[in-house]
């Protein structure tokens, strides 16, 4: 388990959730668990903050929700990506790549400013 935890940038939660849902429909707890597992708990998300993010994205039409029965026979609300959500994820992915590449170049820079 990584000792360092990364403070979450505003708006990144949306991207993380969209990415999570790109694997298929998932309930809120499932999303939390997936983030935890994927990042080895490096991103300490307050799990409660997931839900406003989900609702907001539902209002924007990026995700849709549906009540279903889980494998162990409980009712849970499942979220899935809408086509608009998928487009949003793609848009975010390219800007994140550009951002992280730029950050990487800065952090790895070997020449001092002229």
């Amino acid at each position, binding site marked *: 388990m990584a000792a360092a935890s990364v403070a979450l940038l505003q708006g990144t939660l949306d991207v993380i959730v969209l990415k999570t849902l790109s694997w298929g429909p998932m309930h809120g707890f499932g999303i939390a668990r997936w983030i935890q597992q994927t990042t080895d708990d490096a991103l300490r998300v307050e799990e*409660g903050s997931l839900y406003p993010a989900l609702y907001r994205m*539902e209002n924007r039409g990026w995700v849709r929700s549906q009540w279903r029965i889980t494998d162990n026979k409980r009712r849970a609300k499942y979220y899935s990506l809408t086509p608009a959500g998928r487009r949003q994820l793609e848009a975010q992915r390219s800007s994140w790549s550009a951002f992280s590449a730029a950050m990487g170049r800065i952090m790895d820079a070997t020449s001092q400013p002229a």
Partner: protein
Amino acid sequence: MSVPNDEPRWRRYLRFWRSDPAADVDDELRFHLESRVAENLAAGMSADEARRAAAERFGDVHAVERSLASLTRERETVERRLAWGQVIGQDLRYAVRQLARNPAFTAVAVLTLALGIGANTAIFSAVYSVLLRPLPYAHAGRLVELREGAQGGGSMNVTAGNYEVWRQRAPRFVALGAYWYGAYTLTGIGAPQRLFGLEASADYWRALYIPPALGRYFGPAADQPGAPHVVVLSHALWTTTFASDPHIVGRTITLNGDPYTVVGVAPAAYALSTTAPEIWVPLALTPAQRDEHADHELTVVGLVRDGVPVSDAVRDLTAVQHELAHEYPRGGIDGSIVATPLRDSVVGAVRPLMLVLFGAVGLVLLIACGNVMNLLLARAAVRRKEVAIRSALGAARRRLMMQLLTESVLLAGLGGVVGIAVAALGLHALLRASPQGIPRLFEATLNAPVLVFAALVALLCGIVFGVWPALRATRLDLQQALREGSRDSTSAVRGSMRTVLVIAEVALSLVLLVGAGLLVRSAFALQHVAPGFDPRGLLTAQVALPAARYPTDSSTMEAFERIREAVQAIPGASSVALVSRIPIAGLGMDCPVWREGSNTNIESGVDANGRSATGNYFSTMRTPLLRGRTFDASDLAGSAPVVVINETLAHWLYGSADPVGRRLAHCSGGNPKWREIVGVVADMRASGLAEAPPNEVYYPTSQMRLSAMSLVIRAAVPPASLAPAVRSAVAGVDPELAVSGVSTMEEIIARSMATSRFTTMLLGLLGLTGLVLAAVGIYGVIAYFVSQRAHEIGVRMALGATRRGVSLMVLRQGVALAAAGVAIGLVASVAATHALAGMIYGVSTHDPATFLGVAAVLLLVAALASLVPAHRATRLDPLDALRGG
């Protein structure tokens, strides 16, 4: 499907009906926390630990719940709006299909509504333009017309002296503008032209400010006696006479023979009516005028200071006026101020007229709505089955009503659209027919407020006449309706509403027709008023002699005599006279008169109007000389002062005694100048035909000289044909003289009745529209009655009823309905015709002949409208009727 153990069972059912967002949020978060606890337990924590760790990891549950609740509300609002849009869209499409399926019904309903809405919109555009629109001035809301309360009651214009005092002692007014009328002759540009002008103070422009179209207005420096003459032109005069000359400012023009420099052009907005001023020149009160406290001549408009209540400003001014009343007890003022918002003083006189028209056109709309409602009710009966089926398929009553209302509102909307076209035509006709005297009417257009009005009226109509049929159509016993098919089993109830509607329509149209009838009767009465002279074959024209060219009394007298002789020489002119002001056109100088020997205090005098006339004036007018003589060559400027009086004044002053040889004083204040009465003439109507003849005193032209006189020409040929000859005859005497107001006496009388003719025409038109609509309504209900009673009629005929009997039965139904409406309408008319009190002449507002005549007309029309269905009833084949029932 298993049910979660901890969820109350009822909640599931609740969710079946509608989603329960709060419960959903609750469920979702609980699921999350319970899953986390379960995982923690599986990892080996104790129950307490597991719960605490889960809660810690989750954060503030309540905060999350709150934010989810608000996000949910946001979403629901959006969804609800979308759903509404869909429902309305659906209803509209359905309504369009329904209306398209019944083109005849739709056309009749839309046209009826278009007539009602269009007429209302046209009249409203006039009402808006005349009554509601703010005046064009920059500070229109703070303008008041100020008049002086008179000792004998009522109010008067303001004396120049009092006006000067007001200006000095009324700090709560930004400006006190004053003016009186002045007539000017413009020469040097085409033919000499008589101009209607205002002599206005510099403050006039500050009070009644609208930015000038060109140049500037005149200020205090120009508003002084002896200052160089300046003039402001009206927009109309500038565009016509001066051909919109862009370099007009600074040009010098000749008015009354004197040079005036044009300083500016006022914008067109200053023209509040078709008789608007053409020029403004400075009032330039002389020191003598500023000391005048008895001659009430000025019209004063005050602009109240911003933030000061009008009542405060007027109270201050009243205190000043009170002092003036003490200071000048002979000034005729009682120390009070009569302040009227300027808009009221501009349009006050025509307000009742506009309101009567607006009310009448509103009645027409109600009748139109009644008809459409009847159509909808008839259709509701036909559509019972459709409604029943939709209702059986699960449509809620509210939903069905919405659907039906959408249809009626759509119908009204279509009626509104066509109605605006009707309004455009109507307004065009209205403006063409409108008399000159109604201020601001000529500017009426179908502008935004008028269109909003039309839309509101249409919407209101759609809802008002739609609700009842929709309620009716959707309140029904499903099983019965389905079982019986389209037979209307509750026709008695529904029939009664339709009956009520038709009775109301008849009553409303009776009110309209009684109003129109009274006006028509009044017009006839006016036509038979003897004016006191013979207007046929009379031509009149005004000539003014500018003081610059005719400075002395003898020069004006000589000039007028030469003009009279020149006109007299025209072939076809059999007699030519001069008078200071022709009858019908109004009073000239109205002031107190006393007979010799009576008290000469103003209070005890009676007012009489003075005119200056040549001796042959009465014979030219064919007004009989009742006693004594008229003026002759012996009545010279220097000889004994004489007058001729009219019959009314003779009776007032002397009763049945002979006034000839007695003496009276007129317009001579506290120091009477006695004049001998040499003759008595018959009365002439002085201000229109409707007003009773006033007291009149005639002076010989030699003893009362005025610079402007009217020619009265008795023609042996059609009088209008003499007009060019009259102009050239005057030009022959002096080419610089303006001849104005050339018209026949019959035209002048017609013009004086233009407003009442306009009202009569409009109300008559509205009355006829109402009558036709009511007739259609009666026809519809009786036709419905026949179709409903087909079975019964069949039975009657099978049992031996004659066609005549059947026909009479149907007719009786129609006439009975109309009779009920007539009875109600008569009662309503008694109240409603009060509104016409000031508009009718020679007939009482409760004139029995009009009331009974209109009632008879309505009953007759009702009988006629019932004839077609009655005839159809007699053509029923008893066998068909019985089988079909």
